[in-house]
């Protein structure tokens, strides 16, 4: 497109390719920017570089094997991804999950939300240009949580710890003590971030009133999670449709006002405080008991001609599983509703009219995980 400026003087829009291996992008993501000077006029996201056919693979795997693939769809919050999957299977199989298993699941999911948000804070700091400082601080706190996960499940990222019916094995004896320890360092980390970024004038200048999306647009685009709540829509599935024991827990849903990049940062930081609060309440309610229902069949089979959609609040928004069963020990169809894919749709709306440098921050503020987008 040719834009006329001074008579007799022609300017031309420039196409810039960002990614798929650009260090500032999150995962293998490519976007093509059309820029006029420094202003973004159009943005076309290209996804699919990380497509592995996880849904189809799950259709060839039984319900225990499928858990491992769920980990890999959402590798920064694997517990949350596993949760949706096992909840869908449990609902169809009409399994009653023991209380202890539910509380442990809640603790692990909230811890995973913390570790995932730390990851966001760190990566976002780098996007904004604060170089390594916040990234390394975030890593330090995340490491404590990941170490705990390793002590429980044996793996640092792909936990494969939830099973339809409960948990794969009992948590170690010092579980409560260790969670409390981790919460102390997490609190300190959150305070550090608050001091480091929230009122830092340079940070504010870069993030305030950048990449605004209105509440109406956010809802229209099907956004969810902190990215939606930053626009002022108070929708949290943990509150709106409580699953597990979230209805017995007292917590707030932080919402933003502006829907800009700064709000998306702040909502996440505030959400972490709530997560710590939730974990403390869960620890107080944790009791001895079984972690698997009695009389579990060796091979779980689902009834014929049933379908279900289960959604949970993952760190990035609504992580849903649509499961169709035609009997047998495998799903007939499995669909993952990815929060990141829907959130990513807003990228164009947020970025058009902004500076090129801000497009990277805006992408960072959506906090996408490409393996979840592409599956």
């Amino acid at each position, binding site marked *: 497109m040719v834009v006329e400026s001074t008579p007799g003087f022609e300017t031309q829009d420039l196409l810039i390719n960002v990614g798929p291996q650009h260090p500032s992008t999150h995962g293998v993501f490519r976007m093509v920017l059309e820029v006029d000077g420094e202003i973004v006029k159009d943005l076309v996201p290209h996804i699919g570089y990380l497509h592995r056919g996880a849904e189809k693979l799950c259709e060839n795997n039984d319900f*225990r*094997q499928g858990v491992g693939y769920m980990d890999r769809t959402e590798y920064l919050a694997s517990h949350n991804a596993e949760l949706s999957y096992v909840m869908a299977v449990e609902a169809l199989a009409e399994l009653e999950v023991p209380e202890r298993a539910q509380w442990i699941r809640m603790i692990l999911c909230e811890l995973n939300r913390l570790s995932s948000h730390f990851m966001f804070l760190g990566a976002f700091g780098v996007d904004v240009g604060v170089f390594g400082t916040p990234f390394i601080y975030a890593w330090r706190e995340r490491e404590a949580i990941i170490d705990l996960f*390793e002590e429980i499940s044996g793996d640092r990222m*792909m936990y494969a710890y939830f099973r339809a019916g409960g948990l*794969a094995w009992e948590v170690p004896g010092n579980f409560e003590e260790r969670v409390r320890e981790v919460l102390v360092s997490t609190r300190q980390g959150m305070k550090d971030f608050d001091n480091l970024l*929230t009122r830092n004038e340079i940070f504010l200048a870069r993030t305030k009133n950048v990449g605004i999306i209105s509440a109406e647009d956010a809802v229209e685009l099907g956004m969810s999670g902190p990215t939606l709540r930053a626009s002022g829509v108070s929708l949290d599935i943990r509150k709106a449709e409580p699953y597990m024991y979230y209805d017995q827990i007292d917590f707030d849903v932080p919402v933003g006002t502006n829907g800009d990049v700064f709000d998306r940062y702040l909502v996440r930081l505030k959400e972490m405080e709530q997560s710590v609060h939730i974990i403390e309440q869960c620890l107080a309610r944790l009791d001895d008991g079984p972690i698997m229902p009695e009389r579990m069949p060796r091979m779980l089979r689902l009834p014929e001609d049933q379908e279900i959609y289960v959604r949970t609040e993952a760190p990035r928004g609504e992580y849903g599983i649509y499961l169709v069963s035609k009997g047998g020990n495998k799903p007939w169809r499995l669909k993952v509703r990815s929060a990141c894919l829907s959130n990513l749709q807003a990228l164009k709306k947020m970025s058009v009219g902004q500076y090129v440098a801000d497009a990277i921050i805006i992408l960072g503020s959506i906090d996408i995980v490409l393996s979840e987008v592409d599956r």
Partner: protein
Amino acid sequence: MRGIVKSLATTMSTFIRGPVTRGYPSKHRELPERDRAFPLLLWDKDIDEPFCTGCHACERACPVECMTVLMKDNPSHESQDGNSKRRKIVDEFWIDYGRCMRCNICVEVCNFEAIAMNNTWSGHETSVYDRSDLVMDLPQLMAQSKSDEIQEWVAD
């Protein structure tokens, strides 16, 4: 300006905190006992043969189909004047570490507690120059249990 000063103060305060970095690879941190690297076969020291009977249960349950098991009649079974109660025993066993997704399912399904996840550093540091070197055969899978290098952890 005050915000920047405050954030600098946060950075400064870390000067008096201890370091959190670990000197990998010259120093290895201690791994928790549940740590899951790749699966290994276990050696029955009392009878001097593998625990594995070659029953194929793990092979069938593996999500990525990275295991191959062959079974044979046990030459040291009681009926052959041996001291073993295992009528059948593993003949050949391959696990392709390049495909294994370390899900622990093989350990869960084994009825003979014959397989365990490697919870030592040797299981994590497996870089090779050729991908085919990651296909482990029976002696390789058995070596660490034979020499008592791993203390296996199996969930009950």
